[in-house]
């Protein structure tokens, strides 16, 4: 090999080496560059990965949030639904609103309506509440919160209460959106209304009752103060709870008297006021003290227990009434005197008339040749007898009615007394050709009765003489029987009898007054006889009645008197 060749080869080699070195440098450079690029790329990929990751994260987050949002919306709807509430979201700028079905149901629709907004809402509010609703909206725009309860009218015309709550959103301080809930609160309102009405009613009743009580109290106080008899309410320990002015006037005591013991001391031994009031309290009994002499006055006392209505046994005090009967006493005396005098004054001239008529009839019969004169004398004589009878009956009646006739309790043989009457009236019966039958069974000893002899005789006399008077033919049967603790006297006649409608008039005062309702001879009686007999028999503890009567067949009257016990 030539040097040249070698040289060339070497040169070539060098060149090649150089080139190689250069290439190596370049490769190195390129490698560096590449590795740099590679790194950059790797960085970029990493970045991209990061970005992707971030994007993915964002996406994931978004999905999650969307799901959460849906969940929370579902939850919201669920909770709204469970609360029967509707929700709404009102765009204030365009006046449109999103809402759920329940919202529209609350306004009376079965389906979601195409349009809704503040204006449409306003049209549903009842006219009376519209100003209020507007006010609520204005307030909401200022404060940010809506809180409104008003009435809305449904398409079917019914009125419902709603409760709307909401929150306002602003842009540039201007309200642009509002959302919230709405609920139908009609049942609550109705319940509330009822409650209010009930409360009002209770309050009204309380007011009324209070007023009534006050009125009652005022009436009570005014009443007892207006009474002219003394009035005291005392408790069970004889402390005076209430007394009127009259009590001070009658007894001449000061207003300071506070206990019944002080009242008691006024009467000394004449009447035991505390004793009577204790009896009243203990026995739950009204006690009357008819006559108490106090100085120059006549008084009447009455004690009446105050019993709790709930528990009939609890006596919480008593009412003490005190009446000044002085005037009444004086009047009674003058009335008694009046009747005594009247009896004498009227009967004396009548007796003179009767006596003179009888005298003319008995001693001057020969002078009475003129039948007219004879009849006039006869009539005058009969009339005078009748007039005396009337005066007697009047006096009897007034005495009996006033309770002035004191009836004695005597042991009386009623058979003997009746026999006496029969003997006295026999002539009268014979003059009418009537038989007076009094059958007594001697085998049966009738026990004595307890009665006033004279009055019992008067009753028998009245029944038998009536029977004679009202019987034209036949006779009168008198019978006495023992019935339980009574003896019964029955007087049966064969007279005209008494029609049922007239039977109810028997034993009444002036039963014959007015018309001749009884088919009896009015000229023979005052119509007071049976009335007087009834008062007398009643006063002696017996009864008198019409046992039976048949028109055309006769009547049976009967009365009882109690046996001596």
């Amino acid at each position, binding site marked *: 090999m030539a040097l040249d060749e070698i040289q060339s080869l070497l040169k070539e080699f060098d060149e090649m080496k150089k080139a190689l070195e250069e290439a190596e440098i370049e490769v190195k450079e390129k490698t560096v560059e590449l590795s740099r690029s590679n790194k950059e790329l790797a960085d970029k990929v990493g970045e991209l990965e990061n970005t992707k990751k971030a994007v993915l994260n964002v996406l994931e987050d978004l999905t999650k949030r969307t799901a959460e949002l849906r969940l929370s919306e579902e939850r919201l709807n669920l909770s709204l639904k469970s609360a029967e509430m509707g929700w709404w979201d009102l765009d204030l700028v365009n006046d449109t609103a999103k809402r759920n079905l329940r919202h529209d149901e609350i306004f009376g629709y079965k389906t979601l309506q195409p349009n809704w907004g503040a204006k449409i809402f306003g049209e549903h509010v009842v006219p009376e509440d519209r100003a209020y609703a507007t006010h609520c909206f204005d307030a909401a725009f200022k404060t940010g919160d809506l809180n409104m309860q008003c009435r809305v009218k449904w398409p079917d015309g019914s009125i419902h209460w709603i409760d709307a709550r909401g929150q306002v959103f602003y842009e540039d301080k201007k309200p642009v959106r509002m959302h919230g809930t709405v609920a139908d609160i009609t049942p609550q309102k109705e319940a509330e209304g009822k409650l209010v009405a009930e409360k009002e009613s209770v309050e009204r009743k309380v007011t009324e009752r209070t007023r009534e009580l006050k009125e009652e109290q005022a009436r009570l106080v005014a009443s007892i103060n207006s009474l002219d008899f003394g009035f005291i309410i005392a408790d069970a320990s004889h402390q005076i709870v209430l007394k009127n002015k009259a009590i001070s006037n009658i007894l001449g005591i000061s207003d300071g008297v506070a206990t019944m013991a002080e009242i008691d001391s006024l009467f000394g031994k004449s009447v035991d006021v505390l004793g009577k009031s204790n009896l009243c309290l203990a026995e739950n009994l009204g006690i009357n003290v008819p006559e108490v002499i106090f100085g120059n006055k006549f008084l009447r006392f009455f004690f009446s227990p105050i019993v709790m209505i709930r528990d009939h046994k609890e006596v919480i005090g008593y009412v003490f009434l005190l009446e000044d009967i002085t005037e009444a006493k004086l009047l009674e005396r003058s009335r008694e005197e009046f009747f*005594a005098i009247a009896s004498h004054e009227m009967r*004396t001239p*009548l007796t*003179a008339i009767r*006596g*003179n008529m*009888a005298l003319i009839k008995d001693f001057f019969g020969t002078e009475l040749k003129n039948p007219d004169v004879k009849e006039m004398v006869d009539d005058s004589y009969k009339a005078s007898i009748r007039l005396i009878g009337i005066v007697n009956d009047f006096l009897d009646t007034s005495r009996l009615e006033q309770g002035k006739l004191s009836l004695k309790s005597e042991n009386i043989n009623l058979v003997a007394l009746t026999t006496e009457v029969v003997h006295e009236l026999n002539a009268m019966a014979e003059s009418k050709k009537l038989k007076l039958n009094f059958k007594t069974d001697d085998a049966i000893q009738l026990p004595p009765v307890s009665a006033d002899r004279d009055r019992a005789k008067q009753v028998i006399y009245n029944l038998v003489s009536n029977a004679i008077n009202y019987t034209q033919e036949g006779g009168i049967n008198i019978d006495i029987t023992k019935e339980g603790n009574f003896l019964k006297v029955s007087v049966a006649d064969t007279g005209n009898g008494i029609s049922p409608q007239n039977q109810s008039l028997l034993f009444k005062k002036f039963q014959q007054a007015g018309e001749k309702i009884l088919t009896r001879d009015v000229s023979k009686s005052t119509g007071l006889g049976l009335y007087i007999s009834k008062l007398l028999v009643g006063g002696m503890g017996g009864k008198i009645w019409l046992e039976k009567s048949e028109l055309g067949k006769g009547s049976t009257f009967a009365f009882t008197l109690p046996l001596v016990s």
Partner: protein
Amino acid sequence: MKKIFIVDDDPAMLNLYTRTFKLSGHDVETATNGQEALDKLSASEQKPDVILLDIMMPKLSGFEVLENIKKNDSLAKIPVIALTNLASLRSASSDLEKIRALGAVDVVVKSDTDPKELVKRVESLMA
């Protein structure tokens, strides 16, 4: 001839009874009040056989006259019939009892008794 002494403050009644007894054939002396009756009875030579005495009279009542008659030995034995309108079936029998307790032999309720009946009762006392 029997003598009847009649005391009554009412002139019509006094007249009636005077006439009744005179027509029945008796002698009659009268007084119109209690005091006059006592005076006349005390002064009388020929004492009456029966005294008819009205009970209800003003001033000196029949009760008092009766008491005085019974205290006077010369009069005490003369039967006295009390005349009254107070005591009857219809008024307080305490009056009746009082009259009888004072010594009257009979009580005649004037308004219920015809003159002839009265004469009968008086004559029965003098028989």
